[in-house]
């Protein structure tokens, strides 16, 4: 396999006497979807922050030279005191052409002139994704991109992420607790509980005793076969497509 986009070796983060992360190592390659799962408080967000250089940590992080990162945080929106349209928000980070193309790609064209503070959860998720991919990143980092989005939109959203991976040729690191849909799309799953409990192909991870201990019976639901025969508009209406 080619040189990884980002490699973390023996990362440790401590808060006082407590280990938030203990000797975590991982690598993400181009064209690979890596899903990070783990219970609440298992250090998922801390690991992302360490990888992004937002929190100090011990260990080594190597980025491929010139790596461009696109980051989608959890349900982030500018403060309501800031009047700004979706279009303007995107253009703070990318050119007008890139911004328009990205909005169209995620199916959020009609939000263009709306105020950021007036978007629904599903619209915001798409706009943040558009912003992250507008600049053609080499690595896309998504931290629970669908927190607060209804179940109907989820499957379509993750399907789009997989398509974007193919179009952009980027690596994707995804943090999620939506076990069932996410793991169906992931190439590799890393199960975190302060340290890497288990790691590998989604089907193997589900059978791993460490995974079953963490997620119990819920894990059994994780890989139901998912057949998607229709798309959704932003308002949730189904559009049937022929396959």
């Amino acid at each position: 396999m080619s040189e990884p986009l980002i490699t973390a070796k023996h990362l440790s983060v401590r808060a006082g006497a407590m280990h938030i992360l203990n000797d975590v190592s991982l690598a993400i390659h181009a064209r690979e979807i890596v899903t990070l799962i783990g219970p609440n408080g298992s250090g998922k967000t801390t690991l992302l922050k360490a990888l992004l250089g937002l929190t100090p940590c011990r260990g080594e992080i190597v980025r491929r030279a010139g790596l461009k990162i696109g980051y989608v945080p959890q349900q982030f929106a500018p403060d309501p005191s800031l009047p700004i349209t979706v279009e303007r928000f995107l253009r703070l980070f990318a050119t007008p052409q890139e911004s328009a193309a990205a909005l169209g790609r995620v199916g959020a064209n009609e939000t263009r002139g709306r105020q950021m503070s007036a978007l629904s959860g599903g619209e915001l998720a798409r706009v943040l994704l558009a912003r992250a991919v507008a600049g053609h990143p080499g690595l896309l980092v998504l931290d629970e991109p669908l927190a607060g989005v209804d179940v109907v939109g989820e499957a379509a959203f993750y399907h789009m992420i997989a398509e974007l991976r193919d179009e952009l040729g980027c690596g994707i690191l995804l943090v999620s607790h939506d076990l069932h849909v996410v793991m169906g799309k992931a190439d590799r799953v890393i199960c975190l509980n302060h340290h890497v409990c288990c790691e590998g192909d989604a089907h193997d991870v589900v059978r791993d005793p460490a995974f079953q201990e963490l997620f119990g019976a819920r894990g059994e639901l994780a890989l139901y076969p998912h057949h998607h025969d229709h798309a959704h508009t932003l308002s949730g209406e189904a559009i049937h497509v022929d396959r």
Partner: protein
Amino acid sequence: MLIDDFLWRAALGAGLLAAACGPIGCFVLWRRLAYVGESVAHIGLLGAAVGLLIGINVVIGTAALAIVAALLMARAPDRAIPAGTYVGIIGHIGLALGFVVLATMETVRADLLGYLFGDVLALTATDLVAIAAVSLFVLAATALLWRPLLRAAAGGPIAAAEGKNGTLVQTAFLVLIALLVAFGLKVVGALLIVALLIIPPAAARPFARTPEAMAVLAALAGALAAPLGLVAAYWADAPAGPCIVLAAGAIFAFSAAAARIARVA
């Protein structure tokens, strides 16, 4: 002449300073940093006291300590004590210590209220030139740094994660606020300067659809509050600095009421 020179100087100085506070105050609002601005201003008072004590210029002392405080607060440790509390502790220690130091100096004891609430009617021609120069400098710097400042304000964790949150720009932002605090000391004092940073932008918000419109409206609201406040102070024989803040408050109330009527209609 019915209206004396000192009133013109006060109106011009306060108007320019308040206009400069408007746009940079928008970022204080968007980033929810009002309490940081307040603590920086409180420490500015300590700077003024130290400046007087060791015999350097009061404004230089204020600006220096305000800048140091702003830079320290930007690194507030967010562990067991929340960052906001930490900032508040430092700020109030600065305010209390500054007041104690000022009170020990016999020569300034009579002017204590001026440091807290400003003494804009006592502006000299030199003061006016300095305030005007700093106000224009802050306005120009805000315009120059607009895009990176706006990206940091709108993008928050995104800009930081993607390495687009220039530390230099963030430092410049804090230095600009410290400058306004230092030169605003004579205008509205250490206790009220933050009012000029947050009230005009808040009054501008309901009528703005873009960040730029909000900044321009905030500057205008600030510039309008100064003469309004001075006229009120003149007629009511009330302290000028607080009257300017009250005028800004009245503009805010008017704006909020107008926005509500517009929504209902």
